[in-house]
């Protein structure tokens, strides 16, 4: 901290002063025109609430939403990764049909706004599939079964399972196009010479991919994949539009019941920020570690 202060130049001081003045000025203007009564004190209660009946603390709206967001992000990213790897490989194989199919998928998803994509997936795919596979009935059965505890830990309230699954599927399909592009770039970054060397040893195409191309691609692909995962966490707020009860959805709920618009949205913004920022710090650290290990 001392170091930081010593390193400040007069330019930094001026810049900071200008920013502070601007913020103060905007704040004052809003105070004047905006007739708003701040009620920050109600927010903590919507994170954690004391349950009188059971006599213990339980998660309330915002924290419930956050937990759902984390769950959905985890499952969706696993699914997106699996799909994305297939699409990425599909875009680099020799077979023209496979390549065209993979390309079409990617181009469609990249050139249609996410909200539209999500509605289309939701109404045409997940809603129908959920009915077709009778996932509702299945989830209800689980909720009454013996292992209900474990399922609830993994997926939250089982009554919301169908909605959560469609959220996961929709998000994964959407993100898989981007993962696919990252994977393709990774595969293509492995030079032609590597493939030719593998080929001239007589390795089959599958072995060439498995032992030569993919291991090298993986190392190059991890940093952009980590970024994509953070994007996925942020993008997950879109699925509130299809009534998946994640953080954004819960915030809308909170706002409509308490009218604490600013407090609620600022809190939610903070929650997202902390989550994503921690992730990016974590990934950066892992990346640095990975690099030093590679050198050793």
């Amino acid at each position, binding site marked *: 901290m001392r170091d930081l202060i010593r390193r400040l130049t007069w330019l930094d001081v001026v810049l900071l002063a200008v920013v502070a003045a601007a913020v103060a000025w905007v704040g004052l203007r809003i105070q004047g025109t905006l007739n708003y009564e701040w009620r920050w004190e109600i927010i903590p209660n919507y994170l954690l609430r004391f349950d009188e009946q059971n006599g213990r603390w339980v998660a309330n709206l915002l924290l419930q939403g956050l937990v759902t967001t984390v769950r959905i992000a985890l499952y969706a990213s696993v699914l997106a990764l699996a799909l994305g790897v297939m699409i990425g490989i599909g875009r680099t194989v020799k077979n023209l049909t496979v390549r065209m199919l993979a390309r079409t998928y990617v181009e469609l998803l990249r050139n249609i706004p996410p909200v539209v994509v999500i509605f289309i997936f939701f109404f045409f795919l997940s809603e129908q599939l959920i009915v077709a596979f009778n996932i509702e009935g299945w989830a209800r059965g689980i909720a009454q079964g013996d292992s209900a505890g474990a399922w609830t830990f993994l997926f939250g309230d089982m009554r919301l399972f169908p909605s959560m699954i469609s959220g996961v599927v929709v998000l994964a399909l959407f993100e898989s196009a981007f993962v696919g592009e990252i994977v393709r770039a990774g595969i293509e970054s492995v*030079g032609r010479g590597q493939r*030719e060397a*593998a080929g001239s040893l*007589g390795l*089959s195409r599958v072995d060439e991919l498995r032992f030569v191309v993919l291991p090298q691609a993986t190392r190059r692909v991890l940093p952009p994949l980590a970024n994509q995962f953070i994007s996925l966490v942020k993008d997950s707020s879109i699925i509130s539009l299809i009534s998946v009860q994640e953080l954004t959805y819960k915030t809308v709920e909170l706002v409509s019941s308490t009218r604490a618009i600013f407090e609620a949205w600022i809190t939610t913004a903070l929650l997202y920020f902390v989550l994503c920022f921690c992730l990016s710090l974590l990934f950066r650290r892992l990346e640095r570690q990975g690099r030093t290990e590679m050198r050793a």
Partner: protein
Amino acid sequence: MAGRRPIIEIRNVDKYFGEFQALNDVSLTIHAGERVVICGPSGSGKSTLLRCINRLEEPSAGRLTVDGIELTGAKDTLRRVRTEVGMVFQQFNLFPHLTVLENLTLGPMRVRRISRSEATERARKYLDRVHIPEQAEKYPSELSGGQQQRVAIARSLCMEPRIMLFDEPTSALDPEMINEVLDVMVELAGSGMTMVCVTHEMGFARKVADTMVFMDEGEIVESSPPDAFFSRPSSKRCRQFLDRILEH
């Protein structure tokens, strides 16, 4: 080489890249144990010819037979030929994520289906042969260029091929490392291996070549024993080329 069995037969091969003709009616017969050195100006199709022999490139027309196997588009002949033909590249093309030993054992284990211990033993034998037994556990990036190229040669030899192709194996090397690679190649030539080398190292060519081939503009212009080739090349283009590279 009279009386020996032909091991590579190239008959009237053409190769087009789009409109551009990189090989023009090339025919060449190489016998078992023969050492052929190919030279010629840049862009004359030397690499392309070499790459047709192990099917890294598909000829547009003509016939190619390697070790009795006629090269068609079929996958199994392709792999059979590639296991019998080793290739050493100008840029080494070692697998950077694998150690030297793993580079050497991958092919034998996955293609020849021999056990890890047998593959390791074989790898050590060929590392010895290229004079770097002590580098087995290192990664390619930790080696000098000359050492990397020798690992690449050993990697090909581990497949125990009947034919070795070299595409300018020393032209990406610093001058002081060229000889360590050439020495290994001379030793290999002495062991009776069939070799096809694209190189401009004329000292090496004089020492080992049974046949010199000169290519220009996709054609084989001259093909003769080194004595005749160096003392009285029959074509003007070949003479000019030799004058240019033998000057220095």
